[in-house]
């Protein structure tokens, strides 16, 4: 039977999964000032790692842990060549890394199925009906969202979070205070990548199929758009950004049934979203929800 609420719940699951990605980018870019343009790479590493682990018969929790560990490892490794240089280099390096990795996975069948990817990935919870499965997914995904949100809020308020912000504001000043900024930046990328990896793992078990075509660079830019619109540096904001993005994506599909428009609804969604991005950047560059001030007392 048609179950229209399922479409809404499905949207919330996607909001959660991409919200986790947005949270991780917010830690990297919003707080530490590291422009990671290869978010999709870590998302993909997480998805593939967790899929391979769960397909081998191990439980979901091990899959997610593995996904986070492998993503964190790559996050730290990838940054090494460029982290000492200006941010621009890191942006280009991560962007290239994402595409290279996708092409490797696409062409090397022995790793994970090549172009056709992996199918039949076990879900986190075994359920009997479609409805209960959907609610199950919603619960699982939001457990991760809430956990990461609390963790990142805690991190933000801790001395460690302040240090990351100090690096963002003035790396030289942080160095002059005796902080090994390169080391902390690598840590931030590793933590961010681990979180992005877990969202990849959630994505893989939700769709139960992954293939290289699912990890196009456009995902990176979607996550960036979520962070920019929601509010750079504010964890609550980026979650709102993720929700707005999903609303636009799904909304354009619904609205096209009511409004006759001369252009393709899919393209129209990108146009309107692009316009929204420009408006936000022009009139509210800090995003919908501003970064909070650090309270020392």
């Amino acid at each position: 039977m048609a179950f229209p609420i399922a479409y809404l719940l499905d949207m919330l699951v996607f909001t959660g999964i991409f919200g986790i990605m947005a949270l991780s980018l917010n830690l990297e870019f919003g707080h530490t000032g590291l422009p990671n343009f290869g978010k999709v790479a870590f998302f993909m590493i997480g998805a593939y790692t967790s899929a391979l682990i769960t397909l081998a018969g191990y439980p979901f929790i091990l899959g997610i842990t593995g996904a986070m560990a492998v993503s964190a490892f790559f996050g730290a490794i990838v940054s090494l060549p460029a982290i000492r240089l200006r941010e621009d280099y890191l942006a280009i390096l991560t962007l290239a890394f994402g595409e290279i990795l996708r092409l490797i996975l696409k062409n090397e069948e022995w790793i994970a199925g090549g172009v056709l990817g992996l199918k039949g990935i076990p879900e986190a919870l075994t359920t009997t009906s479609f409805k209960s499965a959907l609610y199950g997914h919603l619960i699982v995904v939001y457990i991760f969202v809430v956990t990461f949100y609390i963790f990142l809020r805690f991190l933000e308020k801790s001395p460690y979070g302040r240090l990351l912000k100090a690096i963002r504001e003035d790396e030289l000043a942080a160095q002059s205070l005796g902080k090994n900024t390169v080391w902390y930046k690598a840590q931030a990328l590793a933590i961010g990548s681990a979180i992005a990896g877990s969202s990849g793992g959630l994505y893989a078990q939700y769709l139960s199929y992954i293939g290289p075509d699912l990890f196009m660079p456009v995902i990176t830019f979607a996550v960036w758009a979520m962070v920019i619109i929601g509010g750079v540096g504010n964890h609550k904001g980026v979650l709102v950004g993720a929700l707005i993005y999903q609303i636009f994506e799904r909304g354009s599909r619904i609205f096209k049934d009511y409004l006759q428009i001369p252009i393709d609804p899919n393209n129209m969604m990108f146009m309107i979203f692009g316009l929204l991005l420009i408006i936000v950047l022009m009139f509210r560059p800090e995003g919908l929800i501003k970064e909070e001030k650090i309270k020392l007392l």
Partner: protein
Amino acid sequence: MSKIKKKILMLVAVILLVAAFGAGCAEKQAPSETPSEKPTPSEQPPQPEVIKIGVLLDLSGDLGAIGQKMKLGAELAQKEFDSLGGIGGKKIELVVEDAATDPAKAVEAMKKLVEVEGVKVVVGPMTSSETLAVAKYVNDRNVVIISPSATAGKITELGDDYVFRTVGSDDLQAAALLDLMKSRGYSKIATFVIANDYGIGFEDYFKKYVPEMVALSIRYDPQKGDYRTELQQVKDAGVDAIIFVGYVDSGKVVFRQAADLGLDEIDWLSSEGIAENVMFEDAKTADFMAKVEMIGTKPSSTGFTYEKFAEKHRQAFGSDPDLFSDYTYDATMLAILAAGTAPSYDGPQIREALKKVSEWYNGATGYKLFDENGDPAFYTYNVWKVVKTDTGFKYEIIGHWAPATGLELIP
């Protein structure tokens, strides 16, 4: 003060958006909700007054141009039934969604069709990765899908479920091509394939069954736009023939560059991906294809049923049918017939009806009996050859291939 105001304004804007979206969902749902609210497990849902057929094609993105043409095939099937007054007195409504050549979008659009529109049978998706991506969901939700163009061999493995297709597996066409190659007595070949499931499916098949013949296999990136290095490799390898599997856009570039490199000494074989008349719009490409007497295979589009379909297509849209629009037409016809003859508009019953309908349906692309995997059981490929005529160029049919009969060349 103003800050708080702004914040509130923003919040309101967001809430409005959400509300508008929710309203959209609810309003759209209202008509189709009524029949679906009543049923209890024992009760069967009544047939709705309008039979909804989902159509999920790539109307934008890389395959957008092909998808738009395929949509015409689906519309033709609907028009035909509507001109007869529908099926069993019920009108047919096509609910079209765009998968944007993106498996993630395909899943999302499929969910919209099923959950919001209440569709139980869908024509699509187009690509193999999209089909694999939606497979689990449609099986969970008991929704029948009939893909008109997903050709990957891996889809066969999905087994007895809700996934059907009117088009044959790439493995079958690769077998046809292989027979054609053998009939010509090649000992060494090079494969030159597009780096996606379509191209790699062929490459894998040849590597699996005739590894000793494949001297060189190249996968090319369609976005690259320059293949001189790869073509030079083929030239240096000294092979008897090159098997090209790709699409029109990149095919044109490859053939032009092959002409520049003087690669017309060896034989060229290809598949349906380039067997379209648009190839001849470029004079240099056309000359090259005619010069090397390029041969290849493509899903059969001959016979009186196809001619009848082509004629109807010309009458309705003023243009010849394009690649896969005949398969889309057949998939839509089967979907309509299955949904119309099923005792109720319900996934499992439509699936059973579809199997029955497929036993006698003879469409634009021939008989469509499904085997236990949901693949067409009878399948014929045409063997074509590019020839130059007085008026231009054309793909001349020089033979046929079917799993039962093997290769038959017209003398």
